[in-house]
């Protein structure tokens, strides 16, 4: 090899000087290609060019098919063919010759042959099969250049099915002595991984070797594979985090050879690749993230040179910092960095800054406030791309208060934009936020009108669909519904009275549906008038037959009264002989129904659109048939997605244990559990069929905290007074001043322009960024849906501490059940729950504990027991009231009748100077008993105590012992039986205790929460029984789970954990999965 290199060095100057001669005279004078190129440049018209090329192609055809053409000439012809193809003329007759050239030519002909193949054919071309043998031969060649060429072509295109044929050879090349071969081999394998991941699974350990290769180029190439593999399964490569960090550290500090530098930045591509990998590894993983904080900091610091490539690194770094587990110090620096981007005068940087801001804003809305003036400026930027990016940013921060301004800006942009794709995209966004946050009916209808007219017929079909659904299903308030519909009708009537020719078909369809359905709501409107307007649409030339069908349907609903019937008749005459069968059918229907009003009344009852039509979607009438078939040995039905998955799995024979990637691993479970008021939220998160929880799960994606949903299935929710808010925000520095990380003062970034436009902008800013400052999203990782939050806030009664105390595990419940206090300790079926036995030391009275201390004290329960010296537990019988001396700890325990049953821990609900209330629930076979303990801790007796307990979702009935007076230091016990009225994830029982203490009447409110699982009782079903009933249980829920990795058999361990902790049951699997 060394003499080749020597030759290179000697040949280099002459080579370069030859090639750099102006106009490449050498080539153009001699070659046919030169003649062709010059011929074309001299031509003036497209027509002449076409003629010339056709001539050229004809001569090429002769040349390549002639047996006398040498490979050398063939190579030259191939270059000309490539040129013709580049000009857009097809030269498919040369394809086979290109393959032949690659096969038979000498080394430099081969090279052109391979190039031609790559340019002519794409991955799916059938001729590629002919190339396999050639590649195979070249891979085995002793000539390095041939091997290189083969690897290059393999990495560009190779038939998927033929990979196994060459895989061993490529694999072998990983050990080649030349680094360029190793590098290319790694990239070829990367390509294989992309198109057929299962085929390269067995060489994963060789990738590790490539990662440790002494040549940085090979290591870099292997990062492509790692990035992809880590994307697919981040859990599997956590152990490499430290290695990647070390590599990045070395790169950043310039340990690589100089020739990897690019504009004196050490290996930027390598850095960026590593940053991407790290961001995936560190996502939602505190431990992994902590390892990388140092190097991220270092990268931020090092990237100082004022060059695009450093900005590219910075951008990637910022993205990484915001993706991994948050570190306040780094976040601050990253925010500063984004700030520099955004205010940069370089337009490319500004663009990237906006993009970064859009990315970050989901996690840190306050950052938008800092840059509000810049964002406003970007909205008016002359470059449309910048504007577009800014709108994208605004879309992310939309809330109920700024929606009108943002929608206005978007529509403004839509009016200017001519690009279809942008229009479709933006129109969808406008519709989405308009529906979500619409402040009022009029605005909503008008906005949607604009959306429909601007979006034209390219609009995504779900926009009109969901709009109509919203209108028909309406929301809770019937009055609001009526108003909205009336407004829509009015608006459409006036639209139809104007110029209708420009309205898109989709919009016309919406209009005719709404008019057909709701124009009767307006009693002063003559149906005949609506009919006339609709007829106008039918007569228009550009109306499509689909729209006409909609119009006819609307007419069918409308025609009542003589005038309309006569209009209907004439319409029917026109269309009943239409060529379009659907149209003809509708016309006939119209004709029949307009004559028979009784039938029409039955078919299309007025104002019934919102009532659901009963459809047996489970096809239960087929049950008998299905169970018969199942009994006869038929395979059970699988939904299409499952079938597809299985198909995919079958194709790709998996050799590795299933390592599933998980949105909910155990650590994140803990987080959610802590946040929610009851310990059960974890299990409900897994069961996945609660809307509340699924919202929470998806909240990482888009939703901003504090965003209010105004408009939706739940109905039109009351709106805040926007005017007041605007006034508040008028002075942007006071309400909107960011309080958290990265608090660069506003004024620094606010350009000091002339006061007046500045003022205008400030106003715009205040209306745009309203509602962002109020949110305090300290925690970046977990977000809860605002709806849920509000609900929670309401639910909390002032005295309730149940949310805090419930977390503590109490020794009265057997240890096995209290293993993990965040997971529920009260699963009814868990037989291991040892009922409280009187010989055990009873738990210290919760009610005695000062609420403010609750957490710490509960954790140290055992020591409390000792220090308090509770010797003998008290055997409380029903209604028994125990007197104890004041300084001794009085303890609460269940009535004896109930003590044998599984029950939850006793939690303190509220307390005041005179009394304390605590409660627990007991699982009985037929219901759940709520047991409430009231301890009179005052000096005097409590009289006339009355307890009122109610719940929205539960039937509450008093099962025993109405209250009377409670003596001093005594405990009264009340029992209520609870049965489910309507299932929700968390039940809440509200209680009110009114009593007369020594002085006056007092009232105490409290709330008690129960998880849904308390009400669930196991149902014994055999697999066969399940098989026959499977249709009725067709509630499919899929959930990815991280396997517990510490055991020997991860799958079984995980399943056991699920069974134990969440009360899930594994149903036997029939057949293979």
């Amino acid at each position, binding site marked *: 090899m060394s003499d080749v290199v020597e030759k290179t060095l000697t040949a280099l100057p002459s080579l370069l000087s030859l090639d750099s001669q102006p106009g490449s005279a050498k080539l153009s004078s001699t070659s046919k290609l030169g003649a062709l190129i010059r011929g074309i440049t001299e031509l003036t018209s497209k027509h002449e060019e076409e003629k010339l090329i056709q001539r050229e192609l004809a001569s090429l055809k002769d040349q390549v098919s002639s047996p006398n053409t040498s490979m050398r000439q063939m190579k030259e012809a191939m270059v000309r063919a490539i040129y013709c193809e580049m000009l857009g003329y097809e030269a498919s007759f040369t394809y086979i010759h290109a393959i032949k050239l690659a096969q038979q030519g000498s*080394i430099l002909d081969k090279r052109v042959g391979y190039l031609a193949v790559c340019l002519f054919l794409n991955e799916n071309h059938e001729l590629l099969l002919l190339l396999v043998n050639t590649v195979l031969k070249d891979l085995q060649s002793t000539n390095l250049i041939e091997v290189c060429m083969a690897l290059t072509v393999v990495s560009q295109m190779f038939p998927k099915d033929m990979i196994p044929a060459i895989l061993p050879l490529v694999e072998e090349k990983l050990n080649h002595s030349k680094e360029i071969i190793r590098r290319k081999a790694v990239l070829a394998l990367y390509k294989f991984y992309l198109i057929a991941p299962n085929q390269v699974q067995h060489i994963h350990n060789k990738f590790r070797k490539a990662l440790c290769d002494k040549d940085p180029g090979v290591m870099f190439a292997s990062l492509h594979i790692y990035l992809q593999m880590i994307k697919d399964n981040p859990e599997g490569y956590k152990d490499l985090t430290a290695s990647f960090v070390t590599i990045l550290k070395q790169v950043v500090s310039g340990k690589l050879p100089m020739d990897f530098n690019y504009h004196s930045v050490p290996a930027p591509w390598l850095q960026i690749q590593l940053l991407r990998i790290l961001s995936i590894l560190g996502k939602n993983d505190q431990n992994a993230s902590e390892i990388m904080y140092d190097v991220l900091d270092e990268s931020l610091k090092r990237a100082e040179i004022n060059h695009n490539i450093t900005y590219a690194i910075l951008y990637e770094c910022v993205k990484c910092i915001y993706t991994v587990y948050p570190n306040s110090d780094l976040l601050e620096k990253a925010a500063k960095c984004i700030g520099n981007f955004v205010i940069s005068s370089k337009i490319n940087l500004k663009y990237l800054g906006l993009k970064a801001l859009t990315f970050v804003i989901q996690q840190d809305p306050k950052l938008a406030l800092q840059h509000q003036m810049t964002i406003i400026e970007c909205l008016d930027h002359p470059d449309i791309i910048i504007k577009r990016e800014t709108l994208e940013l605004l879309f992310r921060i939309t809330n109920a208060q700024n929606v009108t301004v943002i929608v206005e800006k978007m529509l403004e942009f839509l009016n200017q934009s001519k690009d279809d794709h942008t229009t479709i995209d933006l129109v969808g966004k406008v519709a989405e936020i308009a529906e979500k946050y619409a402040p009022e009916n009029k605005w909503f209808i008008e906005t949607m009108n604009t959306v429909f007219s601007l979006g034209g017929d390219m609009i995504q079909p779900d926009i009109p669909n969901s709009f109509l659904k919203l209108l028909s299903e309406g929301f809770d308030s019937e009055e609001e519904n009526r108003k909205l519909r009336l407004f829509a009708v009015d608006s459409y009537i006036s639209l139809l009275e104007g110029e209708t020719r420009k309205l898109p078909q989709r919009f016309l369809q919406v209009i005719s549906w709404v008019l057909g359905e709701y124009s009767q709501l307006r009693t002063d409107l003559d149906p005949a008038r609506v009919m006339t307007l609709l007829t106008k649409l039918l007569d228009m030339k550009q109306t499509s037959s689909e729209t006409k069908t909609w119009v006819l349907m609307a007419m069918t609903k409308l025609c009542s009264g003589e005038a309309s019937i006569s209009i209907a008749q004439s319409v029917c005459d026109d269309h009943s002989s239409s060529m379009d069968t659907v149209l003809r059918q509708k016309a006939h229907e119209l004709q029949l129904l307009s004559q028979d009003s009784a039938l029409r009344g039955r078919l299309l009852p007025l104002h019934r659109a919102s009532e659901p039509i009963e459809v047996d979607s489970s096809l239960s009438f087929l049950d008998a048939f299905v169970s018969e078939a199942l009994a006869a040995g038929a395979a059970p039905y699988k939904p299409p997605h499952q079938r597809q998955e299985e198909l995919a799995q079958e194709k790709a024979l998996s050799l590795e244990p299933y390592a599933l990637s998980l949105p909910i691993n155990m650590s994140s479970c803990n987080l959610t559990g802590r946040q929610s008021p009851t310990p059960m939220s974890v299990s409900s998160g897994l069961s996945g069929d609660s809307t509340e929880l699924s919202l929470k799960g998806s909240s990482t994606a888009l939703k901003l905290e504090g965003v209010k949903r105004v408009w939706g299935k739940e109905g039109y929710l009351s709106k805040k007074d926007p005017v007041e808010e605007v006034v508040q925000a008028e002075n942007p520095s006071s309400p909107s001043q960011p309080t958290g990380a990265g608090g660069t003062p506003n004024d620094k970034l606010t350009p000091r322009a002339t006061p007046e436009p500045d003022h205008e902008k400030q106003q715009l800013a205040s209306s745009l960024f309203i509602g962002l400052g109020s949110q305090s999203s300290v925690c970046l990782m977990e977000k809860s849906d605002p709806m849920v939050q509000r609900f929670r806030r309401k639910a909390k009664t002032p005295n309730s501490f149940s949310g805090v105390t419930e977390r503590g595990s109490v020794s009265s419940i057997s240890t096995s059940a209290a293993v993990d206090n965040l997971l529920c300790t009260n699963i009814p079926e868990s037989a291991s729950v040892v009922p409280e036995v009187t010989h055990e030391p009873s738990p210290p009275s919760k009610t005695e504990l000062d609420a403010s201390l609750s957490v710490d004290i509960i954790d140290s329960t055992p020591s409390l027991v000792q220090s308090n010296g509770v010797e003998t537990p008290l055997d409380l019988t029903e209604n028994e009231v125990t007197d104890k001396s004041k300084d001794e700890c009085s303890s609460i325990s269940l009535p004896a009748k109930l003590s044998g049953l599984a029950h939850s821990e006793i939690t303190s609900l509220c307390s005041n100077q005179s009394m304390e209330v605590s409660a627990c629930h007991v699982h009985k076979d037929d219901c759940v008993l709520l047991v409430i303990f009231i301890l009179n801790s005052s000096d005097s007796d409590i009289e006339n105590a009355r307890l009122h307990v109610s719940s929205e979702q539960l039937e509450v009935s008093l099962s025993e012992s109405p209250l009377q007076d409670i003596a001093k230091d005594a405990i009264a016990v009340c029992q209520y039986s609870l049965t489910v009225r309507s299932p929700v994830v968390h039940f809440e029982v509200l209680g009110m205790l009114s009593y007369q203490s020594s002085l006056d009447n007092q009232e105490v409110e409290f709330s008690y929460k129960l998880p849904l699982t308390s009400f669930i009782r196991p149902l014994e079903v055999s697999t066969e029984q399940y098989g026959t009933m499977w249709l009725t249980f067709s509630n499919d829920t899929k959930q990815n789970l991280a396997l517990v990795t510490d055991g020997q058999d991860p799958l079984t361990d995980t399943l056991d954990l699920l069974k134990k902790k969440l009360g899930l049951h594994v149903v036997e699997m029939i057949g293979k999965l």
Partner: protein
Amino acid sequence: MWTVPPSSKQMHFLLLFSRQGKLRLQKWFTPLTDREKKKVIRDMMLMVLSRPPRTCNFLQWRDLKIVYKRYASLYFCAGLEDQDNELLTLEILHRYVELLDKYFGNVCELDIIFNFEKAYFILDEFLMGGEVLETSRVAVAGSLEEADTLQETMEEYMSRPAY
């Protein structure tokens, strides 16, 4: 309709065209039909050539981000996925120009017109399957020279009528 392939590639295509709208080089890293390719080429030229000066070098086209840069009379234009790093791609284009420059020596459009196959070879050494293969300038040049030297010696050898 344009569909983004499942694999996440750095780059979907790279086009070189002149100010007059003549295609000089095309490289596709995702399989497309000829019709789609023609559509992409036409759209790119329309969009890029109509951009006013002093605007940013990024565009949105369907689901793709377009990064383009003008070098003398030649436009370099790359299509990449939305979440990719545009600035980095801009530097990839620049690096490619640097490589061309090093190979041709003060490269101009004519060099690429007449020696487009060389431009393709350089690109193949630099980008493989849409990913940066070789970040070291020396190495790219080195492997090209190796091949070229061989070419020279072979040509010498072939032209000799000795055998």
